[in-house]
C-alpha cells in the first residue's frame, strides 16, 4: 500500500495543565508524522499523555505550544466540529436517545448531506460493521461489542480523513477484544482512512500497528514499526514496556574511539561481543544492555558460555519453558535473568531448578540502552 503523504503532522506540541506550582506537563514537545492510510498507535502507560495528544488532534484540547497539521493545513485552533477528524471514544459515547441508525446518521446530518446519500451511507456502514439487523435498536439494548461496532460506524460514516480511537477495546473481554482487533484492521484496509489508536496494551500495539509511538511521562520516546520498537528499543522504558526484557549492567566495555558506532562488551572468559551503538555515546560508567528472553539459549557447559548462573525457577508453558536464572556476579551484585526456550521438539532439553547453566546469545540480539539521553 502506498504510504507517502503525511496525514497528521504533530509539531513540537506541549500541553500544560494548571498554572504555577501545581502546573502539570502532560505532553512535552512531541513531534511526529503520521502517514496517510496508516494504522498508527500511541502506546504508553495510563497517564502518560497519549490520550492528551489524541484529544489535541481531535480538538477537545488546545496545545499550550506547537501545532497540528492535517494534510498540511494548520488545524491547531479549529474547533472539533470543523475538523475532518472523528473519534471513537473509550466509553463509546453513543447517544442513548437515538437508535443505532440515528446514531450513525448524526454526523452526516450535521454535515447537511442530502437525505438519499445519508440513507445510502448509513446502510453501507451498517453492513460494514455487520449490524444491519439491529439498526432500529436503542443503544442500551446492545452488548459491549455491538456498541463498539456502532461507535466505529458512527465515526467512519462522515468519511473523516483521520479516525482517532481512544483505548477503544479496553472495555471488551479478551475474546471479543481479539475479534475486534482483526475487525479494526479489516475496517482500516476497507476504508483506507488513517487510524490513530491509543492503547496501553503493548501486545495490541504490536499486532495491529503499522507504526507505534511509545510515550511515557509526556515524552515521546521512540517511533517505529513494531519490529523496530521490539527489536531495537532505544530507551530503557521502551525496552521494558514493550515485551519482557533482561537488562544487564556490563561493567567492562570499550570503544576504539569516541565517535565509533560500535562498542566492545566484555563477557565471561574474556569473550568480547561487538555491538552497534549511538555515535556520541559516552563510556563514563557501566553500560546497560537489553536482551529479549526468547533470544537467549541455555547450555550445559557453564564455563565457556557468555554468562553463567544457577536456575532458580522453571515454569512450563507447553509451547515453551521459562527459566529464571541467578547470574554469577563478579561485582558482587546478583542479577536475575529470564530465558524462554521453545519446546520445538519433544526431545528439547529441559533443565531443572538448581542446575548450573551457561547463557549464550548473539551480538545482533543485544540492544545497547543509552540511559544518558
Amino acid at each position, binding site marked *: 500500500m502506498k504510504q507517502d503523504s503525511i496525514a497528521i503532522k504533530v509539531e513540537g506540541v506541549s500541553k500544560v495543565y494548571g498554572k504555577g506550582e501545581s502546573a502539570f506537563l502532560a505532553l512535552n514537545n512531541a513531534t511526529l508524522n503520521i502517514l496517510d492510510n496508516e494504522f498508527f498507535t500511541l502506546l504508553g502507560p495510563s497517564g502518560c499523555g497519549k490520550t492528551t495528544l489524541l484529544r489535541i488532534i481531535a*480538538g477537545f484540547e488546545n496545545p499550550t505550544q506547537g501545532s497540528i497539521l492535517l494534510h498540511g493545513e494548520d488545524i491547531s485552533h479549529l474547533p472539533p*466540529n470543523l475538523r475532518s477528524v*472523528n*473519534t471513537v*471514544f473509550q466509553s463509546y459515547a453513543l*447517544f442513548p*436517545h437515538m437508535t443505532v441508525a440515528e446514531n450513525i446518521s448524526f454526523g452526516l446530518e*450535521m454535515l447537511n448531506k442530502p437525505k438519499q446519500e445519508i440513507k445510502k451511507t448509513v446502510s453501507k456502514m451498517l453492513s460494514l460493521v455487520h449490524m444491519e439487523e439491529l439498526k432500529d435498536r*436503542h443503544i442500551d439494548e446492545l452488548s459491549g461489542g455491538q456498541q463498539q461496532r456502532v461507535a466505529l460506524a458512527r465515526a467512519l460514516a462522515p468519511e473523516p480523513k483521520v479516525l482517532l480511537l481512544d483505548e477503544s477495546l479496553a472495555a471488551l473481554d479478551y475474546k471479543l477484544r481479539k475479534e475486534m482487533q482483526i475487525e479494526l484492521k479489516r475496517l482500516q484496509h476497507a476504508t483506507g482512512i488513517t487510524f490513530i489508536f491509543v492503547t496501553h496494551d503493548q501486545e495490541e500495539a504490536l499486532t495491529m500497528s503499522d507504526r507505534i509511538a511509545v510515550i511515557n511521562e509526556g515524552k515521546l520516546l521512540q517511533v517505529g514499526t513494531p519490529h523496530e520498537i521490539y527489536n531495537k528499543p532505544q530507551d530503557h522504558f521502551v525496552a521494558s514496556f514493550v515485551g519482557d526484557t533482561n537488562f544487564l549492567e556490563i561493567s567492562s566495555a570499550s570503544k576504539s574511539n569516541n565517535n565509533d558506532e560500535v562498542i566492545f562488551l566484555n563477557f565471561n572468559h574474556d569473550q568480547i561481543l561487538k555491538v552497534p551503538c549511538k555515535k556520541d555515546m559516552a563510556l563514563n560508567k557501566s553500560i546497560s544492555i537489553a536482551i529479549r528472553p526468547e533470544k537467549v539459549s541455555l547450555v550445559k557447559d557453564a564455563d565457556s558460555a557468555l554468562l553463567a548462573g544457577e536456575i532458580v525457577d522453571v515454569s512450563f508453558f507447553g509451547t515453551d519453558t521459562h527459566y529464571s536464572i541467578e547470574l554469577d556476579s563478579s561485582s558482587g551484585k546478583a542479577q536475575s535473568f529470564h530465558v524462554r526456550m521453545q519446546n520445538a521438539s519433544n526431545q528439547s532439553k529441559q533443565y531443572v531448578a538448581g542446575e548450573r547453566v551457561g547463557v549464550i546469545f548473539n551480538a545482533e540480539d543485544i540492544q545497547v540502552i543509552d540511559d544518558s539521553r
Partner: protein
Amino acid sequence: MDQNIQSVVEFPESKLERLKAKQRTIRNYFLSAPALIVLTIAASGPLFIMLFYSFLTADEWGGVVWQGSLQGWFEVFMRHDIFDGTLLPADAHLSIFWRSIKLSLVTTLLCIVFGFPTAYFIATRPRSQRSFWLFLVTVPFWTNLLIRTFAIMQILSHSGFVNKFLQSLGLIEEPLRLLYTETAVTIGMAYVYLPLMVLPLYATIERLDFSLLEAAYDLYASRLQVLRRVIIPLVKPGLVAGSILVFIPSIGAYVTPRLLGGGKSLMLGNLIELQFGQGRNWPLGAALSITLLVIVMVAMLFYVRSTSRSGVNHAH
C-alpha cells in the same frame, strides 16, 4: 432426575418466601397507617367538602344554604346581564382564567430561560463546589414569601431601583409603570418559583454524560445543534418536572399577584379568595377551586403522557 429433586426441594421454600412477603406487606400497611389516615383526611377531605359546597346555594351573608343548586357552576362560565337579564358568558372569569394560564406559562418559560443556564453552571462546577452553589439557590427560602414580595415591590415601584437606574442612565425621562402590571406579577412569580426549576434540572444535567456532548461536537454539530439534538432531549425529564413544579403553584398563586398585580391583574387564586370573602358566594368559590384543580390535573396528565411516551420510545 436432578431437576425433579430440585423442584421438590424448591417448592416449599418459594411458598415460604411468598408467605413472608405477604406478612411484610401487611406489617408495612400497619406501620404506615397513621400517615395514610392523616393524608386521606387532610388531602381528600377538604376536596370533597369543596366539591359538595359547589353544588349548594349561596347564603346572603356568606356561608351556604343546605339546598342543592347548580348556580355556583353556572356562574363560573356564564352570567346574566344586570339590566335585561340576557345570558352572557362570564367574561370577567374567563379573562382571569386566561390570564392565569398565560402568566403561568410565561413564568414557566422564564424559569426555563433563567433556570437552565443556572442549573448547567452548577452541574459543571467541580464536585466540591456544587453544594455551595445549590445552597445559594435555596437562600431565598430563608425569608418569608411576603417579605420577598414586598422587596420586589420596592424594586419595581415608581421610585424604585429599576426606575432610578434607568433614569440615571438617561434611557427614560419619566418613571415606567412597572408595579401593578402583569409584567410585575410574572417577574415576581418567576423569581419565587425559579428554584423549583433549577433543582430538578440540576439533578438531570448532573447525570448527563458529558462525553456525549464531545461526541456530538466531534461529529460536526455546532454548539446550538449540540444543545438542540443532544442536551435538551437528554435533560427533558428534568425540564418537564421543573415546568410542572413551576406551572402548578403559578396558576394557583395568591400572594404574588395580590401584591404585585394590584387590583387589575387578578389571578385564579385571588378570584377564589374574593368569592369566599367580599363576594360572599361560597358555591362559586368552591366551583372555581375545583376548576383550578381540573386545570392542574390536565397539566399533570400532559406530564405523565410525555414522560411515559419517552419511556416507551426508550424500550422500543
